[in-house]
C-alpha cells in the first residue's frame, strides 16, 4: 500500500516506540519535557511550562541547561499553559530567555486568551475574536495591573491585614502579575503560534505522528455558556466582578502615581485621635478592604488558572494528561463530553493539576481514571509542588489518594535531585 506523504515531504511514520516524561525540580512551579522516541527517526520533544515562584534564578538556570541538554538543543513544541509566573517565569529571566529561545520550537502553544488579536491594544480583531472575548482579556489585563500594584505595595494596600495575610495575598498577587517579559519572549519564539481552545487544533499532528493530541481546555466564552460561574466574566451578565477588578485596578494605579489623598486640600483628622465610634467604623472598613482585595486577587488567580491549556496525548491505548492549573470551571466543559470522558479513562500518566490544590483534580475526573488501583499501580502521577508556598497546596487528602492509588512522584520529596525521567 502506498504511503501518503506529509506536508514536509517525509513519509508518514508509525507512532513513537516509547514516551518518557522528565520532571524538573523547580519548587513551586511546573517544568516538564515530553520525549517521543521514534527509533531511527530520532526523538521529538515537547516542553510544557518552565516557571517557578519559589526557585532562585540559579536553580532555574540549572534546570534550563539540563533540559537543553536533554532535548539536544531543540524542542519541537513549547506549551505555555497559562501566564502565571509559576509556569512561565523562566521565559522572562535575563539570560534564560535566550537559552529557551535557542531551543527554536516549531510551534508555541498558548491559550486563546493570549491571542494578540484579543489583546486590549489590538488594532483590529481577528475573525475569531469576539467583543466578549476581548472584554474578557481586558478584564484579565486590568486585574493583573491590580495584582502588580498589590505585589509592589502589599503593606500599603493591606495595612489592616495580619502579616501572614499580607504575605499570603502578596504571594498570590505575585503569581498573577502581567509577566510581560515572559509573554514577549514566548511571542518571539517559534515558527508558528497556536492559540488554542477546547476542541481546537494545537498544531502537533504533523510534529508528533501517531500521537493523538486533544485540547480539552480552556473553553471559549461561548463554550462555557452553560457554566454559570464562568459567565461572571461576561461583562453583559456579570458586570460586578469585572467592575471590581477593572475599577479597583485603575483607581489604585492612579493612586500609585502619587495622588496620595483623594482631596489633597481638604483638612484631615488623625485616626488615632478620632472618637471611638469613628475608630470602630474605620476598623470595620479596613477589615472589609482586606476582604475586598482578597476576593479580587483570588478571583483573578482562579480566572487565570482557568485559562490553562489542557492537553491529552494518546499513543495507542495509553494517555498522558497535562492540565496545567485548570480548575473545576475549566474542566467542566471537557467532563461534559462523553467521548472525551472515554479518552480520559485511558490516562496512564497524570500531571497533577495546580500543584495538588483542592479543586484542580475534580473528583469526577479522578473517578474516570480506570488505572488507579491500590495494588498494581498502573497510573503514574507527577506532582511538582512546594509545600507552604501557596495556602492549602498541596491538599493533603488528594496527596493521600494519589499515594494510595497511583505511583506518585512528588518533587517535594526530592533532595538534591534536578530531574527524574518516567517512561510510560
Amino acid at each position: 500500500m502506498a504511503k501518503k506523504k506529509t506536508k514536509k515531504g517525509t513519509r508518514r511514520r508509525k507512532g513513537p516506540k516509547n514516551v518518557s516524561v522528565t520532571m524538573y525540580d523547580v519548587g513551586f512551579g511546573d517544568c516538564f519535557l515530553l520525549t517521543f522516541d521514534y527509533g531511527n527517526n530520532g526523538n521529538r520533544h515537547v516542553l510544557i511550562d518552565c516557571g517557578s515562584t519559589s526557585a532562585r534564578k540559579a536553580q532555574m538556570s540549572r534546570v534550563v541547561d539540563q533540559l537543553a541538554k536533554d532535548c539536544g538543543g531543540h524542542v519541537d513544541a513549547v506549551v505555555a499553559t497559562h501566564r502565571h509566573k509559576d509556569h512561565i517565569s523562566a521565559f522572562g529571566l535575563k539570560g534564560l530567555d535566550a537559552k529557551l529561545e535557542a531551543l527554536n520550537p516549531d510551534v508555541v502553544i498558548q491559550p486563546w486568551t493570549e491571542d494578540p488579536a484579543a489583546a486590549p491594544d489590538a488594532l483590529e480583531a481577528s475573525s475569531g475574536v469576539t467583543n466578549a472575548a476581548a472584554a474578557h482579556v481586558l478584564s484579565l489585563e486590568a486585574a493583573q495591573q491590580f495584582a502588580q500594584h498589590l505585589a509592589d505595595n502589599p503593606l500599603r494596600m493591606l495595612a489592616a491585614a495580619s502579616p501572614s495575610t499580607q504575605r499570603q495575598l502578596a504571594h498570590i498577587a505575585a503569581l498573577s502579575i502581567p509577566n510581560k517579559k515572559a509573554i514577549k519572549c514566548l511571542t518571539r519564539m517559534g515558527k508558528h503560534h497556536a492559540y488554542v481552545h477546547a476542541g481546537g487544533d494545537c498544531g502537533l499532528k504533523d510534529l508528533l505522528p501517531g500521537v493523538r493530541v486533544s485540547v480539552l481546555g480552556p473553553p471559549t466564552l461561548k463554550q462555557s455558556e452553560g457554566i454559570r460561574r464562568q459567565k461572571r466574566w461576561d461583562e453583559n451578565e456579570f458586570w460586578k466582578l469585572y467592575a471590581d477588578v477593572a475599577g479597583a485596578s485603575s483607581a489604585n494605579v492612579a493612586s500609585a502615581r502619587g495622588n496620595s489623598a483623594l482631596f489633597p486640600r481638604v483638612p484631615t483628622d488623625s485616626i488615632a485621635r478620632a472618637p471611638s465610634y469613628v475608630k470602630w467604623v474605620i476598623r470595620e472598613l479596613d477589615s472589609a478592604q482586606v476582604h475586598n482585595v482578597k476576593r479580587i486577587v483570588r478571583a483573578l488567580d482562579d480566572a487565570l488558572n482557568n485559562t490553562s491549556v489542557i492537553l491529552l496525548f494518546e499513543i495507542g491505548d495509553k494517555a498522558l494528561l497535562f492540565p496545567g492549573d485548570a480548575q473545576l470551571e475549566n474542566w467542566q466543559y471537557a467532563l461534559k463530553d462523553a467521548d472525551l470522558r472515554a479518552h480520559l479513562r485511558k490516562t496512564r500518566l497524570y500531571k497533577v493539576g495546580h500543584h495538588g490544590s483542592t479543586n484542580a483534580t475534580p473528583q469526577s475526573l479522578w473517578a474516570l481514571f480506570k488505572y488507579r488501583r491500590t495494588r498494581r499501580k498502573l497510573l503514574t502521577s507527577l506532582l511538582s509542588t512546594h509545600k507552604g508556598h501557596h495556602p492549602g497546596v498541596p491538599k493533603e487528602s488528594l496527596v493521600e489518594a494519589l499515594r494510595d492509588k497511583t505511583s506518585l512522584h512528588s518533587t517535594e520529596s526530592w533532595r538534591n535531585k534536578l530531574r527524574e525521567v518516567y517512561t510510560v
Partner: protein
Amino acid sequence: MMPATRTLTIIAQDPSIKNAANKILRAQVRIPYENLQPGPRGYRVHVVDYDSSQRVLYRPPAVKDGYDPFIRAPDSTLCRDPVFHAQNVYAIVMRLLARFEAALGRRVSWGFGGHQIHVVPHAFAGANAYYSDDAHGLFFGYFTGLEGNPVYTCLSHDVVAHEATHALLDGLRNTYTVPSHPDQAGFHEGFSDVVALLSVFGLPDVVRTLLPQTGPNRNRIRVSDLRAGRLKETALLGLAEQFGQEVSRYRADCLRRAVKRPPRPGALEDPNVEECHIRGEILSAAVLNSFIEVWTTRLKTWLPRTEKTVALDRVIEDGSDAAEQLLTMCIRALDYCPVVDITFGDFLSALLTADMELLPDDGKYGYRKVLRDQFKAWRIQPASGAAEEVRARIVSEPGVWQKPLAKEPLDYDCVHRQSLEQNLDEVFRFLWENRKQLGVYEDAYTWVISVRPCVRIGPDGFVLRETVSEYRQSLDLEAGRLPEVCDGMKKPEGMPDSTSVRLHGGGVLVFDEFGHLKYHIRSRIDNPKRQYERLKYLWENGIHDRRKRYGFSDGSPKGQRFAVLHDRRDGRAEKAGEWDG
C-alpha cells in the same frame, strides 16, 4: 421652634446628566429637620468620610443651619467638594428613610440594631458600593472613569438609593439574608432597584428631561408621545440610557435589561435566571411596566381628543404621582410579606393585600389589576391561591392573602390588647396559647422578633390602624431525618444523611385595631415542598457555612454578604468534587 423640614440639594441622577442649560441636573429635596453634628451626624445617619484605600480620615464638615449651602454652587463644586458628597448621601438616605416611615406609618429601624447608620462616601478605591450589616454601614467606592476623571459612586442617586434600600429592607426583614431559594436574593436586589427607580421618577425634574418637549416654550408634549409603547421608550429606556453613564461599570445595564426584557413566561424556572441580579430584573420589569401602564391609564382620563399637544407639567405630575403611589404600595407590602423564603408570588400577594386593606376599591386607575396582569405575563401567580379562593368566597379579591380560617376560635382571653401592640412576650403568649389553632409547629425553636403598631392613611384620607408582628422558627437536624420531620420530604439528591441542615419557618401576624388577628401569613417549617426546593438549591449551588452546614449562613466573611454576592462559589463545581478534609 424647630422647623419641620430642611431642604437640601442633591444630584438628581449622576453628574453626567445635564439639564437644558447644560448644568448638572439637581433636585431640592425636603427631609426631616434635625439638630445635626458635623459630618453630618444626625439621629439616623452618620456620614464618616474615611478612605480605607488611602487610610485618610477627612475632617467632618460643620453643618450650617438655615440654608442649603450648595443651592447655587457651580457644577465643579458639586463634583469635587467632599462636603457636598457628604450632604448628597445624607440627604438621599434620609429622604428614603422618611419615605419608608411615611408609607409604613411608623419608625423604621436598621437591621443591625443600632440607631445611626454609617455612610462612608469615599470608602475605598473600586467600582463598588455595598451595605454591610456587621459594619452598620453603607460604603461607596470611587474609581477612575474611562476618560481618566474620578467617578464617585456616592454621587449617583440610583446607587445610593439602591444600597440604602438594602439597609432598610434588612431592617424590616432581616431574615431575607438567610440562605434560601433564589427568589429571596433576587427579591433583595429587585426590590432595591424598584425603590431606587421609582424614587427617581418621583423627582419631576428628572421626568422632564426624559420626555420629548415641544412648543415655543418647550412646555408642551405631543399626545402621540404619550402612548404606552412610546412612554416606555422615552421615559424608561431614556432613563436606562442615561443611567450609569458615570458609573457604567457599576450598574448601567440592570435597568436597560429590565426594561428591554420582554415578558417570558416560565423565565423563573430557567436555571440561568437563578443569579440574584438577573432574577431581580424580572421583578423590576414587572413593576416598571406596571408603572407605565398606570401612568397611561391616568393620562387617558383627561387627554383631549382634539388637541395634538398637552401641558407637559400635567403629564409629569401624573407620572410622578403614579410612581409615588406604586412606591408606597411596594413599601407597605413589606409588612404583608412572609417572614422567611419570600418568592415573587408572595410579594405580589402582599402588594395586593396591603393595598386592598387601605383601599378596598381598586380605584379608577386599577393599580392592583395592572400589577396582577404584569406579573402574570411572567407567569408569576399570587401565592395566595387566587381565583379558587375568590370563588369559594374565602378572599374578596384575587391574589390577596386569605384571612385566618381557624377550625377552633382563637383564644384572646389570655392576652391584653394594649400589651399585644408593643410587647414581644405578649405576642408570644398569644402564639403559644393558640399554637394548635394557628398550626404552629411545636417542636421547633420559636421566638417573636418584632411587634410594630402602625397607622396608615390612604389617598382618600381613610385611616388604618394595625399591629404587625413577626415570629420565627428554626429547626436544626441531620438530612436523614427530613422525611420524618417534614411530612415525607425527600432530601436533595446526593446529600449525605449526616449533613447538618437548618430549616426556617415563621409567620407574620397582622392584628386589627381591636387586637383581633386579621392575617396570619405563615411559612410552615414542615412544608415539604418549600423546604425541599430551598435545600436543593443550596445543595446544588454549594451555599453552606464554613462548617459545610446548609441553611445556616452562606459562609461569606463578616460584613461581606452583599459585597461578595457575585463571588459565590458555584455549586455544580462542588458536586464535581473538591478534595475535602
